[in-house]
């Protein structure tokens, strides 16, 4: 089951690279986070780890429900541009994305002997590179912020797959940081409204 969720996780990230509308990007982010939460829950059942189950639930509630809703609210409140044209054209993206995936598999190849689930690590690392590509290909601030949130998801995936979960206090700290990130974004948009 984890493999299927992992596939959907990567698929939603790749699709979001081709998205040119902001709300649709939020939806893909929500779906991506949903699959991330499901991966955490699935791994927690495999390992019989209650902490990871809690983290998975928090991920689904916060990242696939609250954060997309808050971002949608910010977009409407500050009337942000909803068309997000890509600075890298689609036909180049079609080449770049598989290249990134192939490069990452090559990069992680030496650890395949040591780790049974090295493919998960590969997907997490490639998600990082794909999220960085998402930041690079967009010029609007909102979509760049989404790129950062996708990076956060790939970090989380790495934490789940490569380490079988980080200590609880660290994961909660990361959630708090994420919330502060959203608060800072809100504060940053404010003067624009006053202006």
């Amino acid at each position: 089951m984890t493999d299927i969720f992992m596939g959907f996780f990567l698929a939603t990230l790749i699709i979001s690279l081709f998205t040119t509308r902001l709300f649709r990007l939020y939806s893909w982010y929500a779906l991506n986070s949903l699959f991330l939460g499901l991966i955490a829950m699935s791994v927690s059942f495999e390992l019989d780890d209650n902490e990871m189950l809690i983290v998975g639930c928090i991920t689904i509630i916060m990242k696939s429900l609250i954060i997309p809703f808050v971002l949608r609210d910010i977009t409407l409140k500050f009337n942000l541009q909803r068309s997000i044209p890509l600075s890298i054209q689609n036909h180049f993206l079609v080449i770049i994305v598989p290249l990134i995936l192939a490069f990452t598999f090559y990069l992680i190849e030496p650890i395949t002997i040591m780790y049974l689930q090295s493919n998960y690590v590969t997907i997490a690392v490639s998600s990082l590179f794909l999220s960085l590509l998402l930041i690079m290909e967009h010029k609007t601030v909102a979509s760049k912020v989404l790129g950062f949130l996708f990076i956060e998801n790939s970090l989380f995936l790495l934490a789940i797959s490569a380490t079988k979960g980080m200590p609880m206090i660290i994961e909660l700290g990361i959630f708090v940081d994420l919330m502060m990130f959203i608060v800072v974004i809100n504060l940053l948009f404010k003067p624009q409204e006053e202006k």
Partner: protein
Amino acid sequence: MYFVFLPSIIIIVLSFFKINQIVMSFVATSVIFPAIYLFFNHMHNDYFMVDDLNAFILLVSSVVAVGVSISMISLPYRLGLKKKQIKHFYLFFGIFFLGLTLSILSNNMGLYWIGLEFATLSTVYMIKIKYSTFAYNESWKYLIVGAIAISLILFGIILIYSATKPLLQEQAMDFYSLIENAKMINGYLFEIGFFLVSTGMFIKMGFFPMNLWIADIERSAIYQVGALFSGILESAILLGFFRLSEVEKVVNNAHLITFTYVYGILTLFMVSFLIYRAKDYMRLFSLSGIEHMSLIVIFWVSGGYFAALLHFAAHAFIKPALFLSTAVLESHRKYNFRGTLKGIGGTPTLLISMLMLAIISLPPSPMFFSEIYGFKAMIESATLSSHFLLMVGVVFFILLLLSIVFYKFITIYQEALYEEGEPSHIYRSEILTLSIFVVATLTLILPPVLQAIEGIMS
């Protein structure tokens, strides 16, 4: 030991109330007391560990915080800030220092990252305390670049954790366990993690190819933000690099040396020419900060711990002072060097001159000694290898680049001192701030202090 966080929490709480600004500045200086206590009384628990290295870095950062908070007294008159903006500054200053203390004192890589993230996010809002379109755009830029850098750091930390977890279990998050068990660590995965962490740290310090973002941000923000960046934030980042590079040194020293030297020398190359073309004080000092950061990491990986720490401390005192003195130097025009030291009085001219000449390592600046020891360490590290001539070439190349920086600073200094310009006004709190930093810098060349710094890593 949790009392160390108390001053920052008090600052955060008081920032919500109506309090006299001078009182607030003096409350903010209380951050120095726990730092002094911890410098002499080391302690540890599950998540925190105070040793010579982080106690020293915390003390240096606290002195910088004291200087910055005293300089805040004159800021409303200097920049025309409103009370609400000053309160916002203190709120985020409190969060910033809380995060930094957490980061510096933690023995846990995860907590280190959380502290760093708090500090990064709090500075985002500080950049646009004095609102302008430039500051607004730069704060967005900082949010994005800072977030990418910090994400790379966390990504690297997770990879390091996954590389060491089979060996150390939950202890794999501790810096000390990593250093103690470095010989048994799975090299490949750890190295990928280490290089990602280092890249994130180097981006945050403005290394090549991300040279310009930090200069733009410091240009757009109020002067105190530049001081906090160069004096405190970079200290915490360097501490993380110091700790992890000690492990990488055991895992694969050749990779560490190659990676850091290539990164550092490329940065020095770019920055020296950018300094040569600098048109204003803020960018000049900001780029010079990047130059010094690259020297510190090069000295550290070469085994010149004393040189790196002395250089770090000197930079942490001199650079914030220069950023704060820019408020005086730029009081008439931003993009001007001519006659900027004219008419500010004898003592302030002497203080600023001392700082400007100290930053280019003119003796008896501590930076002069740190560079001598640093280059010595570089040569020593190559004496037993087959790369001795290459290392000599590298030292000469770095000296050549530093001479460009030296030439530019001397030219600007002469232009500022000897050419005609409009007289500027300097406030008493600004003189006090500069005096604190000059005294702190001079303290570094006292023999007992030099001995204490030398003893940190031995």
